[in-house]
Structure formats: structure tokens, C-alpha cells
């Protein structure tokens, strides 16, 4: 059930998917790995949409050089833990949801427990080793992984449903070298917003997900396109795996 305040808050989107759709968002728990460039728009949009429980994990402190893109953090937050800053902003954006902000490095030893019973994982990381770890947990738990990556004016996104679609290792078997990547804030703004849009559609069980497709954004050309991607039968992460759960949350 919704309070008067919630009904008013979500009025304009309940015109799209009704109280039932809103209830689906409210009951959901989404895990966001990273409170940086991608994690900012993802968490902001999921919070204001009314995703009931958001867990957001980051190990960093806000640096002045983050502020050109990490819109969850303000100038006054420089030197604060990103999780403290994120929790404060998200709670102010929507006091009717639960925000768990966890200040820890996502590692082999803690990833399964951190993700817990979340309904989906959003990849807002800045490196492939951690992404592969999220991919493994998504496969083990049979929950979707909403992938995004950015560099400069370029970005990519895809939605991974383990056992159904290619996993991250099918698409990108080898990590590129680490680098201090150039970036302008609009790029994670665009890609993170696409990831949040995917999460909302997944939770609602409606629309066409970005599955089996790698969305590629070229901000310089203002051009988006997609490449078809396929499962790798020899994938070291997901080969032989078949989904046992109903992938779509549709209840037609």
C-alpha cells in the first residue's frame, strides 16, 4: 500500500504502469556496484522512480576531480566517503525508499553476501576484474546484470540475463588494460540512464530489454547503434548454464 505522499510522488509514472507497476518497483531490491559516474544517474533515477530498496557500494572518497561527472556528489562532499554522500542525497531525493550504502571494496570474499537477495545487479564499476566478479554472482544467483561502460564520449550498455543471453565474459572475454580514462559527465549520464531504464523495464516486466544486443553510443556523432551479441558455448563463466527461473518478470 502507498501513502498519500507516495501516490502523489509517483502520480505521473503511475499513468504509465499503474499502482501495480509501482508496487513492483517498491518491492524490488537493486544492487548498484559503484557510486561514481554511472552509479550517480543510476541511483538517482532508481531512487526517484521508487525502487523500494537500493544497495549502493563504493570504497572511495569524493575527490574534486570526480565532480565533472559524479553528480551524486557536491563540492561540499570532497573528502567524504562516497557512500555517506550517496546515502544522504538519495534519502533526500526520496525518503520513502530504503537506501543501504556500504563502504567496502567488492571482492571475491564478500560479493555474494553483499548482493544478498537483490533482484538485480547494476554494473557501475570502472574496471573489468570487478565486473567479471559481478557477472559470476549474477550467474550464480540467476539475477540480471545491467552492464554499462564509458570512455570519453563513448559508451556501451547491455542487459545480461544469465542462461538466456550472453554473459559479460561471452561478450568481452578479456579485460582491457587499466587506465585513467578521459570522460565528460554527459556520457555516464546517458549510459547510466539507459541502465536505469533497463532496470525499471525489467522490474515492470514490460518492454524490450537490451538483451543479446550491445548498445553503443558515440556522443561525438550523436549516434547510437547496436551489435548483436551471442552466447559463447565455450564461455568460462556461463557455458552449459541454462536458466531455471522465469527470466522475465511478466505476469500477463
Amino acid at each position: 500500500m502507498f501513502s498519500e505522499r507516495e501516490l502523489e510522488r509517483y502520480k505521473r509514472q503511475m499513468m504509465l504502469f499503474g499502482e501495480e507497476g509501482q508496487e513492483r518497483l517498491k518491492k524490488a531490491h537493486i544492487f548498484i556496484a559503484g557510486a561514481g559516474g554511472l552509479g550517480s544517474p543510476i541511483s538517482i533515477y532508481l531512487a526517484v522512480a521508487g525502487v523500494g530498496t537500493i544497495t549502493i557500494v563504493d570504497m572511495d572518497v569524493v575527490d574534486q576531480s570526480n565532480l565533472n561527472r559524479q553528480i551524486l556528489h557536491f563540492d561540499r562532499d570532497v573528502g567524504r566517503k562516497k557512500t555517506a554522500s550517496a546515502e544522504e542525497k538519495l534519502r533526500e531525493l526520496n525518503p520513502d525508499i530504503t537506501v543501504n550504502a556500504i563502504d567496502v571494496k567488492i571482492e571475491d570474499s564478500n560479493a555474494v553476501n553483499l548482493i544478498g537477495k537483490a533482484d538485480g545487479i547494476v554494473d557501475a564499476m570502472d574496471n573489468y576484474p570487478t565486473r567479471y566478479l559481478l557477472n559470476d554472482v549474477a550467474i550464480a544467483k540467476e539475477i540480471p546484470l545491467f552492464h554499462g561502460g564509458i570512455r570519453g564520449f563513448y559508451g556501451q550498455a547491455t542487459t545480461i540475463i544469465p542462461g538466456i543471453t550472453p554473459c559479460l565474459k561471452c561478450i568481452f572475454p578479456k579485460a582491457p588494460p587499466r587506465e585513467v580514462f578521459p570522460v565528460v559527465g554527459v556520457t555516464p549520464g546517458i549510459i547510466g540512464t539507459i541502465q536505469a531504464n533497463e532496470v525499471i523495464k525489467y522490474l515492470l516486466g514490460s518492454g524490450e530489454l537490451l538483451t543479446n544486443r550491445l548498445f553503443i553510443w558515440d556522443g561525438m556523432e550523436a549516434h547510437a547503434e547496436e551489435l548483436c551479441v551471442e552466447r559463447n558455448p565455450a564461455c568460462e563463466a556461463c557455458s552449459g548454464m541454462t536458466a531455471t527461473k522465469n527470466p522475465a518478470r511478466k505476469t500477463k
Partner: protein
Amino acid sequence: MQWHDRNKKPREEDEMTVKIRFFARFRELLGTDIVTDVAPGTMFTSLIMTIAQKNPAGYAAIFDDKGTFHEFVILMKNGKRIEIADAAKTPVVDGDEIAVFPPVAGG
């Protein structure tokens, strides 16, 4: 697939054109939608190597110093994945559309 460029000129009997699409960093360094003539028997790797050599930084982004694709580079031909190990012996033929891109890693 669109082939705006192909019909612009009369085609020779055995002329073959392929289109190469680079993405992200590779696109910054080498451009994209490169339509080029290829000789019969041209292989995937040698074609990309020829194109990439126009810019040393572009070449270094895609190939290691032994002339092998960096292991993270993704290769596709007509929407199908080509393994790096197979690229040197994968021929390209008229009308092929080739995509070469790196995983984008930032967040």
C-alpha cells in the same frame, strides 16, 4: 546494412569492397565506416593491419609489437564474432562488414 558507396562507380569484374567500422578509442584514432577495395584472398588480420598502419597510435591501440591483436580486442564480421586466433586465416569477401572495438571500461 547500407551500402551507399558501392554503386557510385562502375565495378570491375573482380573488384571487392568491404566496410570497416571502428568503435570508441579505435574510432578516435582511425575514423570509421572505411570502405576499401580488397584483393581476393585478403585475410581479416592483414586488412585491419593495413588500415591501422595509417596511424601509429591507432595501430598500437589494436596490435601488439608482434603484430597480433591485443587480447581484449573484439572482432566481428557481418555481426558474427571472429576469434583472434582465427582472424589471420579468415578471408574477407565482397560486401563484408567488419567491426573492431575495445571493451569500454570506465564508469
